[in-house]
């Protein structure tokens, strides 16, 4: 019963954790600009995230080390500096876009410009981290994030042609704006597999005291949770096709998202869309800031535990305090949240090789995984993700120049 509850909670976390500023923005733009054509990118990102999270959770449960700990130990600090710096840079950018997303939801609700909400959102995020426990942060935001199910309800109520929807799962060439198409595909993939997710996931496994007995429940919650999360992201794309594309609307501002659910759900659609954007971005704000603090603490060997009092792990607490304030600056200066989100999601894709390739090596190291090393399925999957990550490293910047908005 307890295991079942753990899996159910993991699924809820997956649903609430999957949707955030990046996945909502990229899926909505993809639907508005290319119809169902980019659904395959969401499916690919979801599958990749399932394998990456399952692997990092299994590593933590069996070896009792977080992904960052194991990488530093196995490859040495000289190598670990690279994923540390890259991971921090990308995570701060992602954090900025999450703060921007939450601030924009508040702007749409109150009419007060989003830049004025940047510091209050950051302060609330910091307060939650300062006072909250790991479980409360992870499960609380995920449970509130269930408001996102409204997007799936809207998708069904708009009666899409399911055969057309399914056709989007096949990779097809775009008929127009090729660079923008591939840029969005890279952004969707980056939004799905942000490195902060698996640093956070493996650190959470240690926080929650996982052991070898959790390997099976880890597999189920990583798979089912992210499948549901991916389905919600696909629902955003489907609704964007039916609401925006059919009317010739391109998504150029986050503010347009307020209209996404109203044709299907009326006034509640407006309220639920703002709630979805606000809650999920706020939840992601807390998680990304915490993930940065985990990464820093594990890199430098500081004491870390979210459930302990801040003064007991002062450097850890100081890390998320500094990071969250820094990340609020672009939004406070009025930087366009959609452009920032697109940029940070694309850079996330480019940053993948420095984490994915070492993970592949670790998952085959018997010193860490014993009899729980990767089987051939996981090795093939992580190998493909690794090759894809290397390709993305080289194509992301040219695509940013040619197809970025």
């Amino acid at each position, binding site marked *: 019963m307890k295991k079942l509850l753990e899996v159910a909670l993991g699924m809820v976390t997956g649903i609430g954790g999957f949707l955030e500023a990046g996945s909502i923005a990229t899926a909505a733009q993809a639907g508005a600009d290319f119809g169902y054509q980019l659904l395959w990118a969401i499916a690919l990102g979801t599958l990749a995230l399932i394998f990456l999270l399952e692997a990092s959770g299994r590593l933590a449960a069996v070896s009792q080390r977080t992904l960052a700990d194991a990488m530093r130990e196995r490859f040495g600090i000289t190598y670990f500096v690279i994923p540390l710096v890259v991971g921090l840079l990308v995570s701060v950018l992602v954090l900025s876009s999450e703060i921007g997303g939450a601030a924009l939801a508040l*702007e*749409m*609700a*109150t*009419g007060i410009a989003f830049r004025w909400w940047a510091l209050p959102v950051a302060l609330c995020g910091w307060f939650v981290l300062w006072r909250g426990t790991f479980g409360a942060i992870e499960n609380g935001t995920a449970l509130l994030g269930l408001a996102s199910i409204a997007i799936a309800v809207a998708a069904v109520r708009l009666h899409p042609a399911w055969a057309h929807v399914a056709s989007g799962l096949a990779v097809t060439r775009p008929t127009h704006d090729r*660079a923008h198409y591939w840029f969005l595909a890279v952004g969707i993939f980056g939004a799905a597999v942000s490195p902060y997710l698996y640093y956070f996931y493996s650190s959470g496994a240690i926080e929650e005291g996982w052991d070898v007995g959790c390997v099976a429940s880890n597999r189920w919650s990583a798979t089912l949770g992210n499948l549901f999360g991916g389905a919600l992201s696909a629902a955003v794309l489907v609704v964007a096709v039916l*609401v925006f594309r059919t*009317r*010739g*609307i*391109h998504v*150029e*501002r986050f*503010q*347009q998202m*307020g*209209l996404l659910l*109203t*044709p299907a759900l*009326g*006034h509640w*659609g*407006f309220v639920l869309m703002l709630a979805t954007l606000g809650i999920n971005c706020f939840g992601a704000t807390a998680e990304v800031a915490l993930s940065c603090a985990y990464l820093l603490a594990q890199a430098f060997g500081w004491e870390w535990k979210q459930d302990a009092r801040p003064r007991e792990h002062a450097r850890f607490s100081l890390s998320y305090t500094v990071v969250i304030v820094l990340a609020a600056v672009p939004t406070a200066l009025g930087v366009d949240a959609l452009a920032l989100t697109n940029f940070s999601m694309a850079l996330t894709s480019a940053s993948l090789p420095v984490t994915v390739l070492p993970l592949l090596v670790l998952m085959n190291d018997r010193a860490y995984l014993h009899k729980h090393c990767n089987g051939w399925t996981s090795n093939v999957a992580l190998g493909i993700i690794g090759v894809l990550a290397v390709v993305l490293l080289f194509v992301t910047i040219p695509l940013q*120049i*040619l197809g970025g908005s």
Partner: protein
Amino acid sequence: MRRRSMSAARRGIIALTLFAAACRSADAPKLVETIDSHAATARLLVAELGTQHVSRRYAIDLTHRLGQGLDQQATAAEQARLSSDDRRRVGDALARARRDVARAAAVAGAP
């Protein structure tokens, strides 16, 4: 030596910026499509305001942003090399879109 390398870096950034701008230079169909998208958003907003699905505060803010977007498109059109026919098409689209956005603003009760 240091000054020379900084100057080379600056030249590189300028070249990259110009290259990026050239790659994304505005053409008439793209401009018209973007302008029409703003107009379509304004029309959808009017419909949703009519059924009271969205708040007036939100509508006022969105119409303000759409207006800003149209100003940006107008500037892009001025800077782009367009034939007189294309310039007229873009101008017509801008006029239509401004009407739609103004109507949305009026329905929302924008000051």
